[in-house]
């Protein structure tokens, strides 16, 4: 007899059909979310009655090695909330135009049917232009037809090209990896047009500058399954639960596999719950802790005792044994540049001798693999075998001269907190170079001195760990708040685990660390520890940065399609941080950067106003800048030709003459002059005006010309020397802002035209990520809803419209002058050993050497559409390239031409198109494009991989093709990917070895196959000898304190009363959204607090009388935010957090601090600061690459005032 009776009676249970009916569905389609989150999760979307009802994760990832946990399921609370958007009241269903603009357009068209003239009549009328600009963001949208909006946009583009130049048309779309072709749609259009794509990875401050500095690579990290191979994991500035939600199980699981997990984070962040140790370092001061960790590792694992694994690793894979020239300074020596091979008699005449370096094994020796070998004719020696490049003889380099030195030199070691320079003894040798005795030291010996590890050498060395000289465990206590014992033990555990496991210690790092002004140094701290412990290039080891989804795995064919390299080269690709700094006029609101940055006592270049250094970097060819010149580039070629120039060289000469004589100027020299303004701006897959708008309020003022809440005032007039400071600053530079979106976000709200795009469940596309090694698809579960179209279709129809109007504007092809900076992974890496500025007479202007390259490109506007839909012949001729690897594709291209031309999509989507008697692989449908890509990529076609490895063997002289031998038969089509995610193939474009289910880990190919890193020495760099780095004092990793809010000038004009508290404003990635996506989603808002609150510590909240859920105002001179407070003991006093990122569109009351205007959102409080050292160029790994190198849009150093909001008003 039971206590509670069970029910079996079927009649009484007939009602159970009720819930069964709900579970029924009609279709299940694989897709994913094209949002910038690195998740790359495969989902199944459920359709019932033709309506998307819900989604659940796919769980069919192919298994990796059996000793690894499976990947399934992947997908988080945000991804699963997507279905809410599809039919929500936030959904953009139709094209919209701002009423004020639409009225002008209709009036103009009524009297003037020609669209070009209609557009001119509006934008050339200052009253009309101001009228619709001031209406931006203030409501008043009207529905319009696709035909009408396309005509307006095409007219605006062509008008701009004709009047100002095509390099005044810009497009911003981030992170192509999340939906390859949605990005490529817009970029392909822009590049065929002559417009400009703007970078994103650097603007987001997601680009870790330390990667190019140390490894010559944008970013390369392990997939998350490899975390499981680690035995010691430190997480720093990363909140894995929040941002790596589908991956964090590998951490939980690695712990049961015996890994220790240490979290370094100022607050008790979500991931801290997994930690064995939580180390609450003071915000932004992580480098100090790592300086001391490195001090301990160097002392205990190198000086007191030698670990063979570590020593061999340093000799083989790092610049540690390389010779650095010592330079006399006032009181002793300072470290200079690497000694170049051609200064020594034996190597005097070697090719590229300025770019080959020396080690010492009883005499100076010149090993292979340095960058001079990369671009020499003497091929087959660009590998990191320790062999003499002259005669292939083996080299046994010494790491240290200690005990065999000619002399102990006193070397300057500068410490930036105290501003003190200590002189420390370093063993040096004298070498015969240029007929003189040149003092040299190894990088290793200099590093020990830098970190204060004395080995009994004379000089100002700390005596023990308790000595507070740099960089001991006792020294760091004052900065980090962490006790010395913890740091000592952390170092010992980290290094001893690596010793016992040969490198299975790992650091996972993220935006919390990378968004500071000195982010490159913050990263080099743990990188140094990892390299010292032999952890890079090992499964379960290395520095793993997961911020910004940069890894579009089939990079080579993708960039060819995306940037239209199959038709025209070079593309116009802009470094966004410097561009926004200049164009949104944020440079005007600060003085010299030396006012706030930590710099050595005497500097040559590190001084003055940052905008001047930007202009210098542009004219020296270090950084790109569009518009290029204060003149239409189409017009410039026309004029040059009119004056007799025929060839590219003659046009170059003409241009240099114009620049030298002062008739033409770089546009960057005068960003506020109307002919240098950006004019048309496309925003798609982006929230360019809000979540990506570092200095959002300045965007509103200077780009849009509408209301703004900044109260900053001009501060640059006194310190700017070369760039023109105009008064007053212009407002409203943009003629037209077009937003392509599926939700009404802040950027849409502030744009002139909003176009409805297909959401991720309404289109076909491809997706990859660095967190796993699969490729899978976005799939169309339902057709684009209401009047939405896919991005591919939108830009295709715009291309069609442009080609339709073009015969009246550009009836014949026109020639366009295109400038390109000195580029990474090209011979430009050997351009400049020194910093020479032609504009001040330090050298001659030589395109591609001391200034940008100058190209002439033919634009065919009439055939723009036809080119858009055809994979052009230039790709067949030039082959493909990615990350410096070249892949010939003639055979593969010809295979594609075997496909038949067809007017309707066939089931295989591998078609050809033909026009003007020529046949091309088709890109007409996005599925055609996807199949072209999959067929040409070494990651998805085994034969292409084999071909690419063969080509790399020639360059490197080491065997590689065997890696691809077993998978030569692998092919993938889009159809295959809809059925199951596929694992990518090992490819020379990447550095991981992933055969037979092995987890991807960066640099394994370098370590195991001796392929060089793409750096000066070909090895990992602990020492950076670019003259800028020496000048800025960043040749070794060092601790530079975070920026002093007193010196930043962001709190000069805001009220400073006792009701407010000033706090460091942190914007870590959030739990309830991916940037601003999902921030406005009903699901996520309900599960949080209906708003993104400001997190305050209990003590700070008490100081200003704020209780949990009270309304607060945050403000500084940049702007104001009104939100609610979340008061919590887990927040570190002195800081506040608003999780990145918020929208102005949701629950946003008015702000008394700015006269009752509606408050802004998170980026209202930020402002761009450019760290000039990261503009260094023309030199080995310090050469430009799009999203690869350059300053980042960091914003962690911001301070705000917080006060209770007295009266709420809507």
């Amino acid at each position, binding site marked *: 007899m*039971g*206590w*509670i*009776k*069970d*029910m*079996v009676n079927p009649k*009484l*249970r007939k009602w*159970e059909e*009720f819930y069964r009916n709900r*579970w029924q569905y009609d279709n299940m389609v694989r897709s994913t979310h094209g949002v910038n989150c690195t998740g790359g999760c495969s989902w199944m979307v459920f359709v019932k009655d033709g309506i998307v009802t*819900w989604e*659940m994760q796919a769980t069919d990832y192919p298994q990796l090695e059996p000793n690894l946990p499976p990947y*399934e*399921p*992947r*997908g*988080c609370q945000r*991804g*699963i909330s997507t279905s809410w958007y599809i039919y929500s009241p*936030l959904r953009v269903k139709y094209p919209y135009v701002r009423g004020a603009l639409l009225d002008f357009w209709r009036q103009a068209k009524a009297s003037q049917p020609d669209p070009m003239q209609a557009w001119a009549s509006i934008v050339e009328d200052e009253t009309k232009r101001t009228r619709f600009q001031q209406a931006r963001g*203030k*409501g*008043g949208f009207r529905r319009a037809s696709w035909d009408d909006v396309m005509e307006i946009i095409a007219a605006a583009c062509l008008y701009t090209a004709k009047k100002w130049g095509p390099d005044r048309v810009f497009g911003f779309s981030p992170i192509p990896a999340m939906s390859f072709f949605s990005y490529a749609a817009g970029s392909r259009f822009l590049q065929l047009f002559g417009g400009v794509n703007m970078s994103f990875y650097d603007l987001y401050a997601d680009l870790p500058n330390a990667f190019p500095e140390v490894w010559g690579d944008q970013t390369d990290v392990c997939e998350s399954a490899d975390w*499981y191979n680690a*035995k010691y994991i430190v997480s720093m500035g990363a909140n894995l639960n929040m941002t790596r939600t589908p991956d*964090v*199980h590998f951490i939980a*699981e690695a*712990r*049961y*596999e*015996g890994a220790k997990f240490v979290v370094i984070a100022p607050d008790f962040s979500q991931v801290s*719950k997994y930690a*064995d140790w939580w180390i609450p370092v003071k915000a932004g001061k992580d480098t100090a802790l790592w300086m001391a960790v490195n001090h301990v590792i160097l002392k205990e694992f190198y000086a007191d005792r030698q670990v063979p694994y570590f020593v061999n690793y340093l000799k083989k894979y790092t610049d540690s044994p390389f010779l650095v020239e010592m330079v006399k300074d006032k009181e002793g020596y300072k470290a200079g540049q690497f000694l170049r091979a051609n200064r020594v008699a034996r190597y005097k005449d070697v090719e590229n001798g300025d770019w080959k370096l020396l080690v010492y094994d009883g005499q100076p020796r010149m090993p292979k693999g340095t960058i001079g070998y990369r671009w020499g004719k003497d091929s087959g020696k660009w590998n990191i075998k320790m062999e003499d490049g002259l005669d292939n003889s083996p080299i046994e380099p010494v790491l240290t001269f200690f005990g065999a030195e000619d002399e102990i030199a006193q070397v300057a070691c500068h410490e930036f907190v105290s501003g003190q320079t200590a002189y420390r003894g370093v063993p040096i040798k004298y070498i015969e170079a240029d007929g003189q005795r040149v003092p040299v030291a190894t990088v290793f010996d200099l590093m020990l001195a830098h970190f204060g590890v004395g080995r009994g050498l004379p000089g100002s060395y700390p005596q023990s760990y308790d000595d507070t000289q740099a960089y001991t465990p006792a020294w760091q206590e004052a900065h980090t*708040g*962490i*006790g010395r*014992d913890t740091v000592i*033990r952390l170092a010992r555990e980290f290094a001893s*685990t690596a010793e016992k*496991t040969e490198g299975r210690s790992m650091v996972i790092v993220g935006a919390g660390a990378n968004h500071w002004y000195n982010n490159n140094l913050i990263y080099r701290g743990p990188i140094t520890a990892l390299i010292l412990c032999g952890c890079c290039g090992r499964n379960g080891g290395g520095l793993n940065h997961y911020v910004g989804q940069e890894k579009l795995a089939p990079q080579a064919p993708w960039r060819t399609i995306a940037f239209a390299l199959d038709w025209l080269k070079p593309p116009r690709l802009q470094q966004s941080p410097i561009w926004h700094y200049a164009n949104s006029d944020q440079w005007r609101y600060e003085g010299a950067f030396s006012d706030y940055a930590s710099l050595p006592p005497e500097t040559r270049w590190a001084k003055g106003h940052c905008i001047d250094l930007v202009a210098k970097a542009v004219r020296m060819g270090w950084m790109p800048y569009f518009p290029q010149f204060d003149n239409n580039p189409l017009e410039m070629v026309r004029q040059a030709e009119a004056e007799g120039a025929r060839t590219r060289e003659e046009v170059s000469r003409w241009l240099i003459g114009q620049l030298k004589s002062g008739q033409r100027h770089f546009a960057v020299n005068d960003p506020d002059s109307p002919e240098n303004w950006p004019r048309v701006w496309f925003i798609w897959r982006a929230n360019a005006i809000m979540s990506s708008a570092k200095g959002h309020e300045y965007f509103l003022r200077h780009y849009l010309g509408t*209301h703004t809440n900044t109260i900053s005032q001009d501060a640059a007039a006194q310190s700017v020397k070369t760039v023109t400071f105009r008064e007053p600053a212009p407002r409203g530079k943009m003629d037209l802002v077009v937003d392509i979106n599926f939700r009404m976000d802040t950027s849409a*709200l502030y744009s002139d035209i909003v176009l409805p795009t297909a959401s991720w469940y309404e289109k076909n596309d491809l997706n990859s990520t660095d967190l796993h090694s699969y490729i899978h698809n976005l799939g169309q579960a339902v057709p684009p809803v209401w009047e939405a179209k896919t991005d591919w279709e939108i830009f295709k129809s715009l291309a069609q419209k442009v080609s339709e109007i073009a015969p009246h504007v550009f009836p014949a092809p026109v020639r366009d002058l295109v400038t390109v900076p000195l580029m990474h992974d090209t011979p430009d890496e050997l351009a400049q050993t020194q910093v020479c500025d032609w504009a001040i007479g330090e050298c001659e202007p030589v395109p591609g050497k001391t200034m940008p390259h100058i190209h002439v490109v033919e634009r065919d506007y009439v055939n723009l559409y036809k080119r858009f839909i055809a994979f052009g012949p230039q790709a067949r001729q030039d082959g493909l390239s990615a990350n410096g690897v070249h892949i010939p594709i003639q055979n593969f291209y010809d295979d594609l031409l075997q496909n038949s031309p067809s007017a309707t999509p066939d089931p295989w989507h591998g078609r050809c198109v033909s026009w003007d008697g020529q046949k091309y692989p088709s890109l007409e449908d996005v599925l055609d494009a996807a199949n072209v890509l999959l067929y040409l990529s070494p990651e998805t076609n085994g034969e292409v991989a084999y071909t690419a490895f063969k080509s790399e063997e020639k360059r490197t002289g080491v065997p590689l093709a065997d890696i691809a031998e077993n998978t030569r038969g692998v092919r993938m089509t889009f159809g295959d990917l809809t059925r199951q995610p596929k694992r990518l193939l090992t490819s020379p474009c990447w550095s991981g070895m992933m055969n037979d289910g092995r987890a991807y880990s960066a640099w394994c190919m370098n370590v195991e196959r001796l392929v060089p890193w793409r750096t000066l020495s070909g090895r990992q760099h602990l020492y950076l000898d670019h003259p800028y780095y020496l000048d800025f004092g960043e040749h070794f990793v060092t601790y530079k304190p975070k920026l002093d809010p007193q010196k930043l000038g962001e709190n000069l004009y805001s009220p400073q009363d006792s009701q407010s508290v000033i706090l460091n404003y942190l914007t870590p990635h959030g*739990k309830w959204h991916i940037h601003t996506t999902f921030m406005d989603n009903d*699901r996520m*808002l309900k*599960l*949080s607090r*209906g*708003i993104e609150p400001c997190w305050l510590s*209990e003590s700070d909240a008490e100081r200003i009388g704020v209780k949990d859920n009270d309304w607060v105002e945050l403000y500084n001179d940049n702007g104001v935010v009104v939100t609610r407070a*979340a*008061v919590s003991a887990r927040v570190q006093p002195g800081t506040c957090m608003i999780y990145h990122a918020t929208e102005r*569109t949701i*629950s*946003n009351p008015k702000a008394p601090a700015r006269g009752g205007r*509606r408050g802004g959102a998170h980026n209202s409080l930020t402002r761009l600061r450019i760290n000039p050292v990261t503009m260094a160029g023309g030199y080995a790994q310090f050469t430009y690459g799009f999203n690869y190198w350059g300053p980042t849009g960091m914003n962690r150093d911001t301070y705000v005032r917080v006060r209770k909001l007295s009266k709420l008003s*809507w």
Partner: protein
Amino acid sequence: MDIRAQVSMVFHLDKCVGCHTCSVACKNIWTDRRGTEHMWWNNVETKPGTGFPTLWEDQEKYKGGWVKKGKKLTLRLQGRVRTLTNIFHNPNLPTVDEYFEPWTYRYDDLFNSPEGHDQPTARPVSQVTNRPVDIVSGPNWDDDLGGSAIYARNDPNLKSLTDEERAQLRKLERIAFFYVPRICNHCLNPACVAACPAGVAQPGAIYKRGEDGIVLINPEKCRGWRMCVSACPYKKSYYNWATGKSEKCILCYPRLESGHAPACFHVCVGRIRYLGILLYDASRIKETASVDDAELVEAHRAIIQDPNDPEVIKAAKANGVSDNMISTAQRSPIYKFVKEWRLALPLTPQFRTLPMLFYVPPLLPVLAAVKDGHYDIAGVADEELRPLLGSLDKLRVPLRYMASLFAAGNVGIVEQVYRKLIAVRIFMRAQRVKDMPDAEMQQILAQANTTPEEVRAIHHLTAKPTFEQRFVIPPLNREMAVEATVDPYQHAHEAGFSFRKVIKRR
């Protein structure tokens, strides 16, 4: 013996991400209708915290669960006999404040606002009144210690600690939190079933399914008295204000019946969830629910029977439990976690409903000490380098708090769990890194009362389980259920041919 099969669950809290993907999966499929806005059949709570609905564990307030009065076991709400006489007066329901007033936003204003002097914004409005609303609570309001001074401080489980210990929990040296996802526990002794007055004679509107023990509310019989809402000590029965009927987690039986894990299990990206069959002795429910607090967990374990025991198998078969069901029970990951390894514990067993969802309690970071303004991990200065992974006495785990949550106050039971979890980690590290002498390892295993074989098994199911190993779905042989009313041959061709039925308000 009265052996029955029960679908049971384990949530491994040490792996929980706190992401709420589970909650959204459930919401999308089941409770996104009018009248269900406040329902979260699956929710995730931050602990310490007050949960959802707020302070649900406080039975002084809500009168949920059972109480032991001498040898008698009665509903705290009221004696079973009194239920019918008292149906019109039930003061122990959570109010809208204790759930939250559901809201949305005036998204339309972003599209439709006429041009004005300032930017339009989407204001929050009540989903009940459609008027502007001030949002003051929600289903996950104290997430990640938000409002810690108000909410975390009032967690009923903190009563087991001293004032000083409570204050310490908010300091850097000790602060910690963890997540507890909650669904219906599909209890063996469900208070909701007992409290339902809908049938004048038993059974009421709420029942436990014979084949799998899933607890369901029949909306055709439910008359909206809401006694289940009060009686459920976990507050997992909700009243639908639009239909006037109560609803609750159905463990996705339509999915289980077709071989899928419940939605919240399938989507669990922390891979913390396990599902399988347990065999239990139904004749001992009342006696098990009636033992003293300190013995509740042991008694609960004891009622679960060994699926490989011939006697148990025989008794199960006698009750009509199929061979396939028994072999499923033999592969059950739940049996391992709960019974064999003794790692998974019931939530607040003191409410005596015998919940069939079990939790592996979470490990937390090592304590620290702050001296002269410097923060040092506890013991770093004086300990040798081994073991790296800390010991129980140094973890930020307030044992009495955990015991209140998972063992009705029995600290010893929780301690045993932690010792074993730590031993697994240390053993596996020693295997991989080889940084511990064997003798020391043996000692740690002995203290944790485990063996290398058991540790390896725990490691596998914790770290590397596949989808199929986590979810061992019972064969529900639907054709046999269907057969009772219609020939399955006929059903195969007719199923779904009907007009969809909406449950109407009475």
